[in-house]
């Protein structure tokens, strides 16, 4: 227990901050993922073959290649890409990108591929009559989407999105290879300096279990809220 004391004598406060960092990276990555899904879901559903091809390549490649490899691509390639863009605008100094942004972006792209598939499935399983009924009622495009399609999509998508959230949360442990101090990295540091890896990695496992447990409880509430009327 002394090992977990807050303050200078233990690792309690460091691990607490690391847990907050894991939560922050996961949420940021999930939001970036939603933005990607927002772009790629319409492309997947579009009738244009070329747009279809782009969206399908995105989801197939990201879901077929290990997360760690994608993270290495961003970790080693991110700086180069940003410097290349900056050099076009005439800025030739060295630019270092923050580990948080690289990590959240890499995990966000992965999470986006899964979210895209979830939203595609949800929209496709909405009855065609709903679209027609909305047209018949004379709703405009926005009304149709926000009042009719989106609420039903969310109801269908939430159980699967909760899986995506779990995957995203667990994937953030891989960002530790880039040096961002989240749960895994902090446990690694603590294990190294106290020579007690068994305790700290087991404690990390407990923290992750706690995070998945609490988020499941919260998501279940959302699920109940969105399935009112069924």
């Amino acid at each position, binding site marked *: 227990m002394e090992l977990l004391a807050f303050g200078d004598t233990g690792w309690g406060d460091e691990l607490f901050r690391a847990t907050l960092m894991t939560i922050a990276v996961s949420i940021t990555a999930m939001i970036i993922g939603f933005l990607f899904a927002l772009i790629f879901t319409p492309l997947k559903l579009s009738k244009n073959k070329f747009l279809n091809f782009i969206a399908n390549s995105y989801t*197939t*490649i990201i879901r*077929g*290649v*290990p*997360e*760690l*490899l994608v993270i*290495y*691509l961003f970790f*080693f*390639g991110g700086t*180069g890409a940003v410097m290349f863009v900056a050099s076009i605008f005439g800025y030739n100094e060295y630019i270092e990108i923050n580990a948080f942004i690289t990590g959240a972006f890499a995990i966000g792209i992965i999470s986006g591929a899964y979210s895209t598939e979830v939203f595609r499935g949800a929209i496709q399983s909405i009855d065609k009559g709903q679209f027609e009924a909305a047209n018949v009622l004379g709703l405009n495009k926005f009304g149709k989407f926000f009042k009719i399609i989106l609420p039903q999509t969310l109801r269908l998508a939430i159980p699967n999105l909760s899986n995506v959230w*779990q995957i995203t949360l*667990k*994937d953030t*442990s*891989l960002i*530790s*290879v880039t040096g961002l101090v989240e749960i*895994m990295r902090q*446990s*690694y540091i603590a*294990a190294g300096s106290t*020579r*007690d*890896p*068994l305790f700290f*990695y*087991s404690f*990390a*496992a407990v923290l*992750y*279990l706690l995070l*998945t*447990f609490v988020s499941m409880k919260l998501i279940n509430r959302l699920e109940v809220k969105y399935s009112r009327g069924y």
Partner: protein
Amino acid sequence: MDLELMINSLPKLLNAAVITLKLLSVSLIIGLFIGLFFAILRLNKNIFINRFAYGYSYVFRGTPLLVQIFIIYFGLGQIEYLRSTVLWIILKEPYWCAIIAFALNTGAYTSEILRSAFQTIKPGIIEAGKSLGISNRVIFYKIQIPIAIRQSLPAYGNEIILMMKGTSLASTVTIMDLTGVAKYIISTTFKPIEVFIVAGGIYLFMTFIIHNVIKFLEKKYSFN
């Protein structure tokens, strides 16, 4: 684009892919037995046995694979007692530590897949077996297990692909698998995009093969 680097690194990466496939196949075989064992425990009516099996799958599905590998590789070596037993011969090798972690992880997911497959078997099929006078053992091995395997094929195919991606974590405990070698080449040449294309291409190719084999098996064992 550095085409020369891509061509030069291809043989090294292909050699590393063999290690990835070895890790994958060994851990899948062990994991399948673990999964089957825990799925049967889950169907047990005894609440303690049931809870134990549920706890196992909950813990391994709720924590990242990376934590599991680190606990087994870095953590278990800390226990003095273990160092003196025969087990240490296995646990001092990063290769076997990775396989143990992968097998336990995929075992947890497999047990969930098989459990739900067992539960969706229609009771009528088991009753039909009983009314023909077939013993419970034979019903289980000759009727329930084949149907459960058929039911769980699509989900298990996904699990194989997820596990193949999971084996990339072996590179964090010094094993030079496909991702490990890719990272090594990237960090020595600073050409991440080229290496990513080649290594990612090999992974995609393996995903493609696994996907099609599962599709073929699904068709072969379909009910109609």
